[in-house]
């Protein structure tokens, strides 16, 4: 039972991440390779605010959202001058810079040693410690974020993002400012990732920089590519598929060393097959180029 609850918690955290990323990748058509950075900044900011500043969970997560939003603004402003491959490379550069900072700023982040003993969330005097309690808190945040994002997906802003994705020149000619709209999407996406980061940190109670590497950014992008982008169902399908796939492999009885490699190979094979047979993802509408 605990195992299933753990999976549901991880699915909830990854759905927050993928729904946020969907705004940039699926609606904006921008391939971002630094989503794990905002996830990481969220995890570290929330942890440090709780442990060093003594803030309770809710104020800490609100400040975390603000801090990550500012970081996304600082990154997005220069990055969104670029499109296509150049944008991907700029986000890749940012991913590498932040990872290096997290890894080497030992005084703040404890670098490779990580931060253990992160306190569990306490809301209105109640400490969420057990798995069912944590499941409730994660899925409550997921539902709140999903509702906000679904409203954004449906709003004129979401429509303008899709227009910029499909025909930037036409949208710009109609008075839509690509830099501004993409920047809003990038910041919102980063802010949602920071919530996932805060939830993850307080769930596992230990974080280190290796949880927020380029591999994680690629994994998040893969979740979207597999599930499909530009709609509400794609990120859900992708998250469930990508989280449950390696778990399914556990039941094949392979040794751990083999299973880890098999997991990577199956991810790779899944992507290749998808590109051949369903390039828009299992439940996607928009084909990421």
């Amino acid at each position, binding site marked *: 039972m605990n195992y299933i609850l753990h999976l549901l918690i991880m699915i909830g955290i990854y759905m927050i991440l993928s729904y946020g990323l969907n705004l940039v990748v699926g609606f904006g058509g921008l391939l971002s390779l630094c989503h794990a950075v905002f996830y990481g900044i969220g995890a570290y900011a929330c942890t440090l605010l709780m442990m060093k500043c003594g803030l309770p969970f809710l104020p800490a997560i609100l400040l975390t959202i603000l801090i990550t939003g500012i970081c996304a603004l600082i990154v997005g402003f220069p990055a969104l001058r670029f499109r296509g491959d150049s944008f991907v490379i700029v986000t890749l550069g940012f991913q590498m810079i932040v990872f290096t900072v997290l890894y080497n700023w030992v005084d703040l982040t404890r670098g490779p040693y990580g931060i253990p003993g992160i306190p569990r969330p306490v809301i209105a005097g109640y400490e969420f410690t057990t798995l069912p309690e944590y499941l409730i808190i994660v899925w409550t945040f997921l539902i709140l974020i999903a509702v906000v994002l679904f409203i954004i997906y449906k709003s*004129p802003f979401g*429509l*303008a993002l*899709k*227009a910029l*994705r*499909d*025909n930037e*020149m*036409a*949208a*710009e*000619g*109609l*008075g*839509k*400012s690509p830099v501004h709209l993409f920047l809003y999407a990038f910041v919102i996406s980063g802010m949602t990732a920071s919530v996932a980061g805060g939830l993850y940190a307080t769930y596992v109670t230990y974080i280190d920089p290796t949880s927020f590497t380029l591999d994680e950014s690629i994994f998040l992008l893969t979740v979207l590519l597999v599930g499909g982008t530009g709609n509400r169902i794609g990120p859900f399908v992708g998250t469930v598929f990508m989280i449950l796939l390696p778990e399914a492999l556990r039941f094949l009885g392979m040794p751990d060393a083999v299973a880890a490699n098999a997991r990577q190979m199956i991810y790779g094979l899944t992507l290749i097959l998808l590109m051949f047979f369903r390039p828009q993802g299992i439940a996607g509408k*928009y084909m990421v180029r």
Partner: protein
Amino acid sequence: MEMLLQIEGIDASYGKRQILHEISMNLSRGEKVLLIGPNGAGKTTLLKTVIGLLPPGNGAVNYLGEDITGDSVRTRVRKGISYLLQTENIVPGLTVEENLALGGYFLSKQELEKRKNMVLDSMEFLKPKLKTRAGLMSGGERQGLALSMILMRNPKVLLLDEPSAGLAPKAAKEIIERLDKIQAAFQVETVCMVEHNLKLALKWATKIILLVQGRVVLVSDSPKSFIQQPEELEKYFFEQV
């Protein structure tokens, strides 16, 4: 006639290549201006500079006496200037209805609905296709949709870049003949159109501006004389280029 749009000594370049050289022209209320010239003359560049997609190197654009040279496209559109791109002027992945909503991006929900109905009354062929993906429509229908999109915001000045581009003769005729009705129905005060189909466009225009190699070489208030003497135009097209 009251002057709406005043372009003063505009220079514009793509990188180091200068396309427009000190272009000056005025668009007054009620005018239907036809901008003509050979390929590469700078017609599209001029429209892009006026709408703000391309910043001018020198010169100024004034709208209703106000300098709008530094304004963004968004601000100019809000002020009442709308621009129809030559090609790829719709979003093919969105439905007709979504494209129209995109055109009326700044409007409130009620205003959007009201404006949409008004536009659909003028472009009746779009009514049964509201839920159709725009990319699935014919070339003529797409141009009609593109025109509808820019009409969603109550524009005062329309800048049209070859609305008949790529259309069959019948569809091209329909679109240009529709312009007068649109101008009246939507109270558009001035239209400036780039068009290569002179046979159709000369009948429509009240003023002609001829652009050659990024310079204005002729401004005429009597397009009818060109219809009677097409060799006048040919002279500019073939001898000065």
